[in-house]
């Protein structure tokens, strides 16, 4: 029998020990040696505490034994002593032993090596711990666990941040504390749990309540958690705050990102950043296009690389930064250099950039290439100038044309009238003579004949004058340098006959300071002759007194021909230069009415002016100006 029990004990895969009433080892099977590494003799009569990791911990041993005695069975798990490896994770199951007389004899102990199992457990726990720490450390999301009923089991930093509770004050509470009274009335929390339970998940955005009573717009995900047996063990809940503060932070990040990419892609403007020293720290597409440098070759360089040597010698780059720092901004247009050394006309704006603490952190620089625009502007300006010039010329030509047209109209109307007059006269007298001849009345025939001849002569004169007039308008001016004295002599010489006949007194007064004039000699002589012959002609019985004066005035020579003749009525002054305009009848003052029209034409063709002053009965003074040579 003994051997049979011995055989059983020796072969059991767990360590079996027997302790006396005081906890001293009285028996151990071979498995104990296998587990602990201690030989049987090393253990027998030793205290059970020898197997503890801390040998001296008899207090714990006494406690364990006491507990086993009181409760009938006690499991002690922990580090046990192992001879070779120092310690192992062991489990000791202790039970008190009573004999048949129910006398307490000591303890039985089953010892197991749980070392491997424990290692697994520990590593699992470590990994769980990592997740827990990670979850707990998340600040942007409130992540917590609910039990199956919806009570909060775990809590993280995000929860403290978003809902405002600490782990201590919220753990154990029902998650409905986060709901508004309306939601509570409609039993929304229960509904969410039910949906999560049934479909695995519940997701929504909605109003939730913080500890301080304020509400926030939340995005929540409620997930049902099942164990390996598919039994519901609770829920996880992830809450995100979508309210402004949260969203701002996010949208700021997004918008910064957006701006950065926009700026990088802008190609019409060179946009780059510089540090406070003027070193380039960012570079965009436009800068690359305008200046020719790639980002990697330019970043880190001083922006003075874009300046011409003289600008650098003048300290211009540094000056620009100084101005930007002092007033916030520096703007100018000027020449800058490309990578290939070519110049371009740039508009630049340097802006000082400050951080939120108002410290200068650098500068932004925006460069525009205005070369093309400048060229276009210049071309436009030139074309504008030339078209303006053209417009001016056209306007002048137009005015000349319309004046010429008006003159022509007047001319034809007058010519048709005035030329018809002698023709009608001639024809009428011829018819009259014919009539008289038929009637045999001859006494007035000679008078009619003379009148006919007069009419024919008048017509001849008219035609000759018209020709003169049109020649003056049409022919090229043959300009030459003419001495004024010489010119006046020439005109007076031509009129010598008339002057002698009228016994006129001619006075000539020429300012010695005047220079020669540049003019067509023939036309100028005719002009003077016309004025002089008018002065001789339009007199009453007085002896003609004519004064010719010449003065230099503003680069012109002003001629003056003054007479003591009959004068011109004031209301007729404007008519005197008209073609065929006669202020007096042919009989009183013969003439074709072309003299002054021709004179005016001559002066105009020489870009001069002609005008007159007159008093009826006292005399007339004609003035005209011709440019000095």
């Amino acid at each position: 029998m003994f051997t049979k029990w011995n055989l059983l004990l020796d072969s059991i895969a767990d360590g079996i020990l027997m302790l006396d009433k005081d906890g001293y080892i009285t028996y151990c099977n071979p498995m104990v040696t296998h587990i602990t590494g201690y030989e049987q003799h090393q253990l027998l009569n030793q205290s059970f505490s020898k197997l503890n990791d801390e040998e001296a911990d008899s207090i714990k041993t006494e406690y364990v034994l006491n507990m086993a005695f009181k409760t009938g069975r006690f499991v002690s798990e922990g580090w046990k002593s192992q001879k070779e490896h120092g310690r192992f994770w062991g489990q000791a199951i202790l039970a008190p032993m009573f004999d048949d007389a129910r006398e307490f004899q000591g303890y039985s102990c089953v010892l197991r090596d749980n070392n491997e199992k424990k290692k697994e457990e520990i590593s699992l726990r470590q990994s769980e711990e990592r997740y827990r720490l990670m979850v707990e450390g998340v600040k942007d999301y409130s992540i917590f666990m609910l039990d199956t009923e919806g009570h909060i089991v775990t809590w993280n930093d995000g929860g403290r941040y978003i809902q405002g509770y600490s782990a201590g004050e919220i753990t154990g509470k029902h998650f409905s504390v986060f709901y508004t009274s309306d939601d509570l009335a409609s039993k929304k929390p229960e509904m969410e749990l039910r949906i999560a339970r049934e479909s695995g998940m519940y997701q929504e955005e909605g109003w939730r309540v913080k500890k301080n009573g304020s509400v926030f717009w939340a995005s929540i995900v409620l997930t049902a958690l099942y164990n390996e047996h598919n039994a519901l063990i609770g829920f996880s809940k992830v809450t995100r705050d979508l309210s402004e503060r949260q969203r701002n932070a996010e949208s700021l990040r997004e918008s910064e990102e957006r701006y950065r990419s926009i700026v990088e892609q802008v190609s019409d403007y060179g946009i780059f950043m510089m540090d406070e020293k003027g070193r380039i720290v960012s570079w965009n597409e436009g800068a690359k296009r305008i200046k020719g440098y790639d980002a990697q070759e330019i970043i880190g360089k001083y922006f003075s690389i874009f300046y011409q040597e003289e600008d650098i010698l003048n300290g211009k780059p540094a000056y620009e930064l100084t101005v930007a720092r002092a007033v916030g901004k520096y703007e100018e247009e000027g020449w800058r250099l490309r990578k290939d050394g070519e110049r371009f006309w740039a508009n630049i704006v340097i802006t000082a950039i400050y951080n939120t603490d108002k410290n200068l952190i650098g500068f932004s620089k925006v460069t525009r290439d205005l070369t093309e625009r400048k060229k276009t502007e210049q071309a436009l300006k030139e074309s504008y100038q030339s078209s303006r010039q053209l417009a001016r010329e056209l306007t002048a030509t137009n005015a000349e044309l319309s004046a010429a047209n008006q003159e022509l109209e007047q001319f034809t109307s007058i010519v048709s009238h005035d030329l018809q007059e002698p023709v009608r006269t001639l024809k009428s007298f011829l018819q009259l003579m014919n009539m008289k001849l038929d009637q045999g009345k001859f006494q007035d025939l000679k008078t009619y004949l003379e009148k006919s001849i007069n009419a024919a002569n008048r017509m001849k004169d008219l035609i000759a004058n018209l020709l003169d007039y049109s020649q003056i308008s049409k022919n090229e001016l043959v300009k030459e340098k003419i001495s004024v004295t010489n010119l006046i002599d020439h005109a007076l010489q031509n009129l010598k006959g008339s002057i002698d006949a009228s016994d006129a007194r001619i006075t000539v007064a020429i300012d010695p300071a005047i220079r020669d004039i540049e003019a067509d000699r023939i036309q100028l002589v005719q002009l003077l002759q016309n004025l002089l012959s008018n002065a001789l002609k339009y007199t009453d019985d007085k002896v003609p007194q004519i004064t010719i004066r010449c003065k230099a005035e503003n680069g012109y020579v002003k001629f003056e021909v003054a007479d003591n003749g009959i004068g011109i009525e004031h209301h007729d002054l404007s008519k005197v230069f008209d073609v065929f305009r006669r202020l007096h009848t042919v009989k009183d003052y013969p003439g074709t009415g072309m003299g002054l029209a021709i004179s005016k034409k001559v002066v105009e063709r020489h870009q001069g002016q002609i005008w007159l002053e007159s008093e009826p009965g006292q005399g007339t003074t004609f003035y005209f100006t011709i440019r000095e040579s």
Partner: protein
Amino acid sequence: MRKYRILIVENDEDELFFMKESFNESGLFDIIGDVKNGNTLFEWLSGKPAEALPDLILSDLNMPGKNGYDILAEIRENEHYAHIPVVITSTSSIKSVMEKCLQMGASDYLVKPESFIDYSSYAKDLYYRCSLKVPD
């Protein structure tokens, strides 16, 4: 048959000669005067009693001194003469010229005959027109 008392304004003495010949011969007009232009016309009119004024003024258009237009403008502004009909006569048959004269107050516009000989029919025409214009 009533004879109209006419005053002629004409600068061309030959033309005037033929006009007078024809008008006298026609017996339709009583030529109470002739002047060379507007200037002498107003001198002639000046100070005349109402009964000495003409029934009609026949005036050339283009003349040295005050021409036909000047006469039209000035006569309409004078209360003593404003009632006297002024007939403008000219060799011009240009429509715009005729219209301008009528617009300025001419009672009529007669184109001068091609030859002085034709003044006899001109005189009849003028007389007929006057019978419509001149008050009885």
